[in-house]
């Protein structure tokens, strides 16, 4: 008996999974068939679109994890901070040249000193820096509504790169070589500090970010609505701003995938994630890699913050959204970029379907993603696309 179990372990496990899958289908099948087609289509679309934002958030968390093996708890606050930076440059008609100059100078100084403060003594990098400061200041102080987007994008990029680099330089870098726990906890400390900073500057905010109003000006309907009550038994709603947020999230996604696959820095980041000491010993500059990773993560967070702020509003609730993306990260696999995309979308879909199939049970937002996550982890312990670890003694 035992030998039978031993020799056929793999097929037996598969059989067990198959039986379980059939049981789940038998349970959910009737519930799905009861639904009107319009509701199924509507929830699927919504789940997909909401999942796009989760994917973008998950990608930001994955980037940090790939470079340093740390799970970033501060990502949610980086989203809100980035969104608010964008808002500040977007909403105000003009920015004082002094503020623009200070932001530009700080950002450029942090960028050129990424490898070390010594860069401040080299004339070449100083000259480059001065040019960059001037260009950035001019971009930031463009006044008038027609320059709104340019100004806001420049401001948000500069601001979030600054935040990412400052966080890395002053909090993460001193911890290289220390226990991983300390670094994870550091991200927690950063999230508290960022919480305080956003409150200090912007107060208790609840600001709908009007980044998608141009969609309406283009003549596109907001929202796109199919009233199919006669044919499919319901209304199918596609929120235009969510659709654009989803599309932009995909674009950001593709850009970063290309970055990781084809640039030296991207490849180096993947190496550093594998083993910091080993990477250092083959000549990779772990410090720079970490700095780049944090800058990219801050940019991704800002992108997610702006898109989410445009779809709903910038509020102190937004950081909690990053918690909802946690299962997306793990579902896909901590190291996998494709995983972040698939994970985010799967979580979005699971939430919406659970809301649809079990009305009144509140199973959607909190329960269903975690049940699915547990199931996936038991079947595939490294997530859907995670690397299978080969461990040695």
């Amino acid at each position, binding site marked *: 008996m035992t030998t039978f179990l031993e020799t056929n372990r793999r097929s037996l496990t598969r059989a067990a999974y198959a039986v379980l899958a059939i049981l789940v289908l038998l349970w959910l099948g009737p519930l799905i068939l009861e639904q009107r087609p319009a509701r199924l289509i509507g929830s699927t679309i919504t789940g997909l679109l909401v999942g796009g934002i989760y994917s973008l958030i998950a990608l930001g968390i994955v980037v940090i994890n790939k470079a340093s093996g740390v799970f970033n708890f501060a990502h949610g606050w980086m989203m809100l901070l980035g969104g608010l930076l964008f808002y500040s440059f977007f909403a105000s008609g003009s920015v004082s040249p002094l503020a623009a100059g200070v932001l530009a100078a700080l950002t450029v100084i942090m960028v050129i000193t990424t490898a070390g403060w010594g860069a401040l003594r080299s004339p070449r990098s100083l000259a480059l820096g001065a040019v960059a400061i001037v260009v950035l200041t001019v971009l930031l102080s463009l006044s008038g509504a027609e320059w709104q987007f340019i100004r806001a994008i420049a401001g948000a990029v500069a601001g979030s790169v600054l935040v990412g680099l400052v966080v890395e330089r002053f909090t993460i870098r001193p911890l290289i070589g220390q226990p991983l726990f300390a670094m994870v906890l550091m991200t927690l400390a950063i999230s508290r500090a960022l919480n305080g900073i956003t409150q200090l500057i912007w107060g208790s905010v609840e600001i709908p970010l009007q980044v998608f109003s141009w969609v309406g000006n283009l003549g596109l309907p907001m929202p796109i609505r199919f009233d199919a009550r006669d044919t499919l038994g319901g209304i199918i709603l596609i929120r235009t701003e969510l659709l654009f947020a989803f599309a932009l999230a995909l674009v950001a996604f593709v850009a970063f995938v290309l970055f990781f696959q084809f640039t030296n820095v991207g490849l180096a980041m993947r190496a550093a994630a594998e083993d910091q000491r080993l990477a250092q010993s083959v000549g990779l500059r772990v410090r720079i890699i970490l700095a780049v990773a944090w800058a990219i993560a801050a940019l991704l967070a800002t992108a997610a913050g702006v898109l989410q702020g445009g779809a709903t509003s910038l509020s102190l609730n937004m950081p909690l959204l990053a918690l*909802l993306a946690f299962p997306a990260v793990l579902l896909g696999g901590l190291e996998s970029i494709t995983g972040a995309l698939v994970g985010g979308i799967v979580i979005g879909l699971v939430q919406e379907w659970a809301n649809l199939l079990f009305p009144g049970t509140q199973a959607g937002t909190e329960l269903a993603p975690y049940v699915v996550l547990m199931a996936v982890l038991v079947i595939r312990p490294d997530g859907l696309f995670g690397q299978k670890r080969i461990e040695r003694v």
Partner: protein
Amino acid sequence: MKKIALFVVLATLLTMLALPAVAQDAGLPDFIQHTECQVDLTGQTIPIYHLGDLSGSYAFITQPLIAGLGDAIKFFNEHGGVCGATLKSDVGTEYRDTGGKREEAQAAYDNFSSLNPKPDLMVLYASADAELLRSQVAEDEIPVIISAGSVAGLYGEDAQSPGWIYATNPLYADQLGSFCNFVADNPERFPNPTIGYISWPGAFGEAAYTPETISYCASKGVTILDTPEYFLPTATDISTNVLNLVDAGANILYTNSLASGPFLIAKTIVDLGLQNEVQLAGVNWALDTSVGLLSRTAINPDNGLPAVNGLIGSLPFYWWTERQQPGIAFINQQAEANQRTLSSRNIAYLLGWSIVDMYIEIYTQTVNRVGSLEAVTGADIKQTIESMKYSPLGLFNFDYQGGAIRALPDNRIAQMAFLNKAQNGPATSGDDALTVDLPDGTKAFVPLLIPLTPFSPAPDLRPGGADVP
């Protein structure tokens, strides 16, 4: 360098010490009638202790409360204080931010309740905090004033034991009950009414959905669906939740949420094109400036008025736009003088002023009876509250005589609309709506709350309450 820094710090400290010396007494406006003082308390301090969420998801509504309390304390201290005693509420020592975390609230309360001398009156904001601390304030004999009225917080698990907490709003369950009365009284507007309950999860969001409100409303011919939908404040899209209720037959959606909650539901209804089929209604917090301010994205001259135009809710006190009421006119003037932004001119700013005014009256009466401030205990304050009838700045009646009732019994139903440019009535289109320029350069629409009913007693819908069928 160090010397310069030291000098700067010293100079700052000195200026700070010198500033409060120039206080003046110009007499209170006549509509504020406090009891005559029989004891002089000059030189003493009365702390206003409070704790709640200032940096979490409710910060949007609680920060104006701090602004209101601060402005009111400053004003009343300059006008004689409490029989000469100054009111005081500083961050850390008198009030604490809990970030919306219950564990933090518990810790902050433990700290305040073990102070020596023990607080004899406190202020809380959240239903969940009240429910958590209910038995503890009773044990420590500290009366509490709160704005939120949840059954469990005020009357305990059996709903029959009034404790030490007094609300300045009607119970959430009673508010839904009085909304059902309004619906039942207007059959031409609400034929065949079916309410879908949609809110945030948690003690506050779920507070109005009780078996008693369901059976009371059913007795009035108003159905409340038994599949409530709850969504997180972070939700991006709630069309599935809204459609679940609409598919189940709801033509009224009722929400016990605030700020982004009612706004998101309203926006979803408009997005679904259901604004003519579904009426949105909510708790008193839903009828607030924040909801109106949020709706400024939804407005688009082609689409007509913002999504929340027409939102119905409870309005158990006078509102900013009812300027014929002297208290309201006075607070408007004060908010102007203190340069308060539009977003802080909300319900909580009004409450902040009312609370300070009530503190003065409660302490004056208690000290008159007891003889000195040191001798005042929580039990004395409780006795005062249960024997007095007071209307802080004329905004609402704070009347707990007899002691059995812990929440305001009176309520009225009002509708949110937008002022027209002439400021003499609701706007009829988006172009007609009055906008104000915000400091950040954007425009906001000014919401107007139009009472639909006069003040009248709300049904008593505690478990076993007088009006439960």
